C-alpha cells in the first residue's frame, strides 16, 4: 500500500502538488466545558476561529490540497468550512473534510493511509496551530534527504524558544536529541517536569554519533512533514496513538531494525504556536494581539467581514463599536463590531467579541469575552473566559480562571469563585464527546434565576484549571521553580486522555523541598554550600556588601542558580554569622544588630517583593530551627528586617500564612516569639494588602 504510494510518488515529482492534513480534533478535552458544544478548532482566538489561522498558515506556504480530520462535532466543522472561503472555488487549495471514527491521531493517520489520499510528501498540522513560518526550506531539506534515502520518512519543524516561554508548552519538557550533522533526531523523550532531567539514551546512539545536540528549548507545535512511507509505519503498528510519544519514539526504537530516520528542521524566525491548553490560549492571544504572529494580527482582518483597525497601544476596534464617553479601553484589547461599552467601564488587556453589551462601571481585566455576551453594571471580570451568549448580571464578580460556558446566565450579585467552570451542558458518562445533555441549574453557583451549574472535574481534567491559573501567572513565577509544569499534570502527551497523575497544588512560590530533587539536588546543594560559605566569609571579614554581592553574582552565573537559592544562601549565611557572633558572647539582639544592618544591601539585593520576603523569612526560619536561640534570633532578625523595611507587612503575613512555616512542631516553636512583630506589621499594612490581593 504505502510502497505503491511511493512508486506513484516518484514519477509525479515533476508536478507534485503540495498536500496537507489538518487534525482538527484534539482528542482530548482541555477546553472543557467549551468543547462540549464546540470543537476546539472553532473556538475564537482574538475573535477569529482557530482553524482560520491554521488554513491561512497552510495557504501561506503554498499548500494546494488539504484534508481535514475531525472526530467530535464533525458536522460543525464541516458546516463551518463549507461556508468559509476555503471551500469556495476561489480558495487557494482544495479542501476536503474527512469523516472518521478516529479517537486518536494514530487512527486518523491509519485511516488516511487506507484512503491513500496522499500522493507524495505532505504536511501534517493540528487544527489549532498558528504559524507564519515559511516552510520552503524545511520542504526542500526534506525532499533532498528523501532523494538520498527513502528512509528519511519525516521532518519535524520546531521553533526555538527560551527554556521558559509563555508560548511554549509548559508541562511537557520535550527533549530532542539531534545529530547536528544530519539534523537527524536520534532520540526523543518527554521529561516529566520536576523529575530528574535524566534521559536514558541508548548507548549505540552515543556510539554512532560524533556530535549530538540535546534540545529542550524548542516549541514543538506539531508541524510535521511526512512521506507516505510514514503513513505505512502508522498502519503497521496499531497501538500508536500520538505522533511524538508513540510514532517518533517507536520509529527511533527500531531504527536498528528498519533504519528509518526522522529529522528535525529548527527555525529561529517566524512564529509558531499551538493552542492546546487554555494557558496556551492565553499566551497565544497575547502574542497575536501584540503582533508577534504578524501578519496574523486582528487588523489583518483574516475573515472578509472583519474590519479591525489598530489604534495606539495595540487596541483593535472593529467598525461600529460604541464607547461611552467616560469609558476607557486600554492597551492590548480587541473589540468586535457593534459591541457597546457603558459609562465609566474600564477594559484592560481583554478580548471582547461582537455584539457584546458591557454595562456601566464594569471592570474587565485580561478577560476573554466571546460574541453576544452581556455584562451587567458594576460587574468585575478578572482573567476569565465568558463564552457566547453568556450573561453576567449586575455587580457580579467573576474571579480569576473562571470559565463561563455558552449561554450560561449568572444572576446579579453572584461571585463566581476562582477556577470554577460553569456550564449548561454536561457530558453523558462514557467518553463519546458528542453525547451531551443539559445539567440541572445550581443556584449556589449561578445565583437565583441564573442558569448553569459547576462542571465537576474528573482527575484527568484537573489540569485544565491549573492551566488556566498558570496562564495568568506572570513570567517570574513560571521561571523560578517548575510549579507550572507541576500544575498541568506531567503526563505523556496532551492528545491523550488516560493515565493522568493527580496534580499537586503547591503554593505559588518555590517550596524549599522543590529545590531539591534528583540531580538538580546535587548542583543546588553544591551552589548553596559555596555561596553561603563565601557570603559568610565576607561577613566575617567585614567585607563591603557590594563586594560580597559581586562574588555571589559571579558564583550565581557559574552555577546558574535561581533567585530562591541565592536567598537561601544569604539567609543561611547571615544565620551563621549571627550564630557565631553569639558564640563569642553577644546577645542575640546585638548579634543581629551587628550582622544585618550594615549589610542590608546584600539582603535588599535579592529580597524584594512580598513573595521573596516571605520566602527569605522561611529560609531563615527553617535554618534557625537547629541553631542556638533560634527563636530569639528570628524575632530580632524579623524585627530588624521590618525596621529597615527589608520586609513589609505582606512579606511577614505571607510567611506567617504559608503552611510550610508551620509545617513542623519545631518550626512552630522557632517562629512563636516572632508573632507580635508580624501582627503589628500586619495591621499597619492591611489596606494595601486588600487592593493588592484583588489586583493579583
Amino acid at each position, binding site marked *: 500500500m504505502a510502497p505503491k504510494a511511493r512508486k506513484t510518488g516518484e514519477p509525479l515529482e515533476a508536478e507534485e502538488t503540495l498536500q496537507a492534513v489538518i487534525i482538527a480534533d484534539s482528542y482530548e478535552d482541555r477546553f472543557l466545558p467549551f468543547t462540549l458544544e464546540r470543537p476546539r478548532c472553532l473556538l475564537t482566538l482574538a475573535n477569529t476561529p482557530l482553524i482560520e489561522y491554521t488554513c491561512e498558515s497552510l495557504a501561506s506556504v503554498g499548500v494546494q490540497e488539504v484534508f481535514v480530520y475531525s472526530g467530535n462535532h464533525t458536522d460543525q466543522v464541516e458546516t463551518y468550512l463549507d461556508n468559509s472561503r476555503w471551500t469556495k472555488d476561489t480558495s487557494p487549495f482544495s479542501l476536503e473534510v474527512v469523516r472518521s471514527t478516529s479517537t486518536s491521531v494514530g487512527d486518523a493517520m491509519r485511516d488516511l493511509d487506507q484512503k491513500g489520499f496522499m500522493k507524495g510528501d505532505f504536511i501534517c498540522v493540528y487544527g489549532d496551530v498558528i504559524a507564519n513560518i515559511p516552510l520552503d526550506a524545511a520542504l526542500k531539506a526534506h525532499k533532498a534527504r528523501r532523494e538520498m534515502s527513502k528512509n528519511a520518512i519525516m521532518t519535524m519543524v520546531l521553533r*526555538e524558544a527560551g*527554556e521558559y516561554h509563555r508560548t511554549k508548552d509548559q508541562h511537557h519538557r520535550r527533549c530532542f536529541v*539531534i545529530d547536528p550533522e544530519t539534523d537527524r533526531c536520534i532520540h526523543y523523550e518527554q521529561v516529566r517536569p520536576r523529575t530528574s*532531567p535524566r534521559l536514558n539514551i541508548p548507548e549505540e546512539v552515543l556510539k554512532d554519533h560524533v556530535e549530538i545536540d540535546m534540545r529542550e528549548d524548542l516549541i514543538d507545535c506539531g508541524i510535521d512533514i511526512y512521506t507516505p512511507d510514514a503513513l505505512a509505519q502508522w498502519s503497521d503498528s496499531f497501538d500508536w496513538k500520538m505522533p511524538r510519544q508513540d510514532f517518533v519514539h517507536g520509529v527511533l526504537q527500531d531504527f536498528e531494525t528498519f533504519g528509518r530516520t526522522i529529522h528535525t528542521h529548527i527555525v*529561529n524566525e517566524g512564529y509558531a504556536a499551538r493552542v492546546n491548553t487554555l494557558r496556551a490560549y492565553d499566551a497565544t492571544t497575547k502574542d497575536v494581539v501584540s503582533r508577534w504572529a504578524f501578519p496574523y494580527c486582528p487588523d489583518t482582518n483574516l475573515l472578509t467581514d472583519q474590519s479591525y483597525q489598530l489604534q495606539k497601544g495595540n487596541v483593535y476596534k472593529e467598525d461600529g463599536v460604541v464607547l461611552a464617553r467616560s469609558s476607557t479601553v486600554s492597551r492590548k484589547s480587541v473589540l468586535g463590531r457593534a459591541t457597546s461599552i457603558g459609562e465609566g467601564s474600564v477594559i484592560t488587556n481583554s478580548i471582547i467579541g461582537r455584539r457584546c453589551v458591557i454595562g456601566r462601571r464594569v471592570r474587565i481585566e485580561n478577560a476573554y469575552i466571546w460574541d453576544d455576551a452581556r455584562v451587567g453594571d458594576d460587574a468585575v471580570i478578572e482573567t476569565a473566559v465568558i463564552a457566547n451568549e453568556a450573561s453576567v448580571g449586575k455587580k457580579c464578580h467573576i474571579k480569576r480562571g473562571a470559565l463561563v460556558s455558552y449561554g450560561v446566565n449568572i444572576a446579579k450579585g453572584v461571585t463566581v469563585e476562582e477556577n470554577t467552570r460553569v456550564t449548561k451542558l454536561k457530558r453523558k458518562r462514557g467518553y463519546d464527546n458528542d453525547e451531551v445533555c443539559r445539567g440541572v441549574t445550581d443556584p449556589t453557583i449561578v445565583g437565583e434565576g441564573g442558569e448553569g451549574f459547576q462542571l465537576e472535574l474528573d482527575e484527568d481534567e484537573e489540569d485544565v484549571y491549573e492551566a488556566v491559573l498558570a496562564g495568568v501567572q506572570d513570567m517570574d513565577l513560571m521561571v523560578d521553580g517548575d510549579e507550572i509544569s507541576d500544575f498541568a499534570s506531567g503526563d505523556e502527551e496532551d492528545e491523550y486522555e488516560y493515565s493522568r497523575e493527580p496534580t499537586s497544588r503547591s503554593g505559588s512560590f518555590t517550596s524549599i523541598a522543590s529545590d531539591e530533587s534528583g540531580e538538580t539536588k546535587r548542583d543546588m546543594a553544591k551552589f548553596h554550600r559555596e555561596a553561603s560559605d563565601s557570603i559568610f566569609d565576607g561577613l566575617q571579614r567585614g567585607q563591603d556588601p557590594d563586594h560580597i554581592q*559581586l562574588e555571589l*553574582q559571579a558564583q550565581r552565573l557559574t552555577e*546558574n542558580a535561581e533567585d530562591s537559592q541565592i536567598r537561601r544562601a544569604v539567609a543561611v549565611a547571615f544565620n551563621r554569622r549571627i550564630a557565631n557572633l553569639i558564640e563569642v558572647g553577644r546577645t542575640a539582639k546585638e548579634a543581629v544588630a551587628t550582622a544585618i544592618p550594615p549589610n542590608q*544591601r546584600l539582603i535588599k*539585593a535579592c529580597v524584594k517583593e512580598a513573595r521573596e520576603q516571605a520566602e527569605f523569612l522561611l529560609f531563615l526560619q527553617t535554618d534557625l530551627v537547629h541553631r542556638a536561640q533560634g527563636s530569639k534570633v528570628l524575632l530580632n532578625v524579623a524585627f530588624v528586617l521590618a525596621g529597615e523595611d527589608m520586609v513589609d507587612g505582606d512579606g511577614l503575613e505571607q510567611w506567617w500564612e504559608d503552611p510550610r512555616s508551620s509545617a513542623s512542631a519545631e518550626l512552630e516553636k522557632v517562629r512563636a516569639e516572632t508573632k507580635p512583630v508580624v501582627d503589628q506589621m500586619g495591621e499597619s499594612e492591611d489596606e494595601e494588602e486588600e487592593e493588592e490581593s484583588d489586583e493579583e
Partner: protein
Amino acid sequence: MSEQGQPTEHAKAAEEPKVSPAELKKRAKAEKQARRAAQKEQEGATGEVPPAANGAHQDYTAQKQSGQQDQKGKGPQAKGQPQPKPSKQGGQESKQERAGPSTQSMPVRGKAAPTAPSKEQPKKDNTVVELLSHLYPVQRRPNLIGVSKDVHPAVLALGLQISTYEICGSSARCVAMLLAFKEAIQAYTTPRDTSLPRHLVSHHLSPQIDYLRSCRPLAESMGNAIRWLKKLIVELDPDKPEHEAKDLLCEEIDRFVHERITVTDQAIASSARNQIRNGSAVLTYAKSAIVEKTILQAHEQGTRFRVIVVDSRPLLEGKRLATSLMRAGLEVQYVPFSGLAHVMKDATLVLLGAHSMLSNGRLQSRVGTASVALRAHKTDVPVIVCCESVKFSGKVALDSIVLNEIAPPEELLLSSPAQPAVHPTAVTTATGKEVSEDDEPAAKLKSLHDWSSIANLRLLNPVYDITPAEYIRMVICEYGSVPPSSVPVVHRLANEGM
C-alpha cells in the same frame, strides 16, 4: 535585582544538555579564575561604590571577568566561536541570550572588540571616513610591547579593558583609573635627590596617563580627576615623609571617588526623581546609570508612571536598561530608534544621561541623543539631563564632527536581534557570516562582513553627538538644577575651584 537574570538561566539551562560536563567544569574554572582576578583588582574598589553605580559598576567588574577570559581565550564567547555549523543554532541562540538582556556583565561591545585589531591595522586608509579622519585613533589596542616600563601593571590591565570597551561609561572609567592610580602611587618611591610633589606627577604619573590616553581618548571626568590629582600632589608639603604622603593621596582619591561620583549619583537621582509625576510617561535613550537610578527610585517611592526606552544599534544598551526596569516591575515600552517619532507624541518627559556637558551648554552624549532631544523640543516635551559635575567640561563644541570618537566599525556588523541565530557569532567567525547568507536570495552575494575589502565602502560608527543647548530645558547635577547656560559656572565652581 537586575543581576539575577532569568534569561541567563534559560540560556544556561538551554545549553546545559549540549555542553559536556567536562566543558562545564572548564567554564566554571575559567569563570572562577576570572572572578578571582576581578576580585584582586577589585580590592577596596567596591568599597567606595554603592549599588547605586550598579549598572555601570557591575559592568565594570564583570567586564573584568570577561576581559580575563578573553585573554585566556576561555570566555563564553571565545568558546562560542569555533562552532562550525548553523545546526548549532541552539548553542548560538543561547549565546545570543547571554548577549541579550542578561548580559549586563558583558556589554555588546565586548564581542566586537576581539576582531578589531587584526581587521584594522592593514588597510586603515580605505576604512577611514576622510571627513572624520582626525577622530580615528592612531592605534587602537596598544600592544604591551613598547609601552614604557614605568607603566604600572594595574594601569596596563585597565588600559586594555578600557580600549576593549570592557569598561565603558565615563564614570566607571574614571573610578577605575583612580583606583589604578592608587596602586601606582603606592608602588612609587621618590628618587634620592627630589621630592615627591615635584617628581611624582611628571615622572611617574604622566606615563601612566599617556598610556591610558593612548588606549582610548580620556573621558572628561577622567580629565577633571587627573587635573585634580595633579593639583593635589603639587600642593603637598614637600617635607611630608613619603609613605604619609602616599597614604594621604590614597585617602584623598578615595574621598574624591566617594564625594564626586558615588554620592552625587544619589543626590542627582533623588532630585531628578521628583520631576517624574504620577501618570507621566518618561522617555529615555540608550542607558545611563543615573537615569536608571532616578527611574527606579521614583518607582520605589510609589510614583505611578511608565517608561519609554528608545534604543539604537549597535550597542542596544537601552535593552539592558529596559530589562532592569522591567524586572523592577515598571511598565516599560521598548522602541527602536526608528520609532522615535511615534513614541515622542505620548511622552511627557525626556530624561537623558551625559557623557559630558560642554561649556557652551551643549550636551555630549551617546550618538542619537541629539535627535531625541530635537524631536522632544519640537513636540514640546521637556528635556532634562542628569550629569555629575565631574563630567562638566571646559571645552566647547558646535557640532559632533570635531569633538567625537569613532568606535570600531565592526560593531555595526553585529547581527540584529531580529534573527539571533542566523549570524549570532557573525562578528567573530567567518562561519557566522555564511550562515547569514544562506537565507538571503543569492548566497553568492557579498556580505557586510567583507566590507573592508570593498573599495569606496566605509562603515562609520561615531560614539557621541552634540545636542544644542536650546533643546535642553534643565541640567540636574549634584549642586541642583541649572539651565544649560550656567554649565560653565558650575564647572568653574566644581572642577577648577578646588
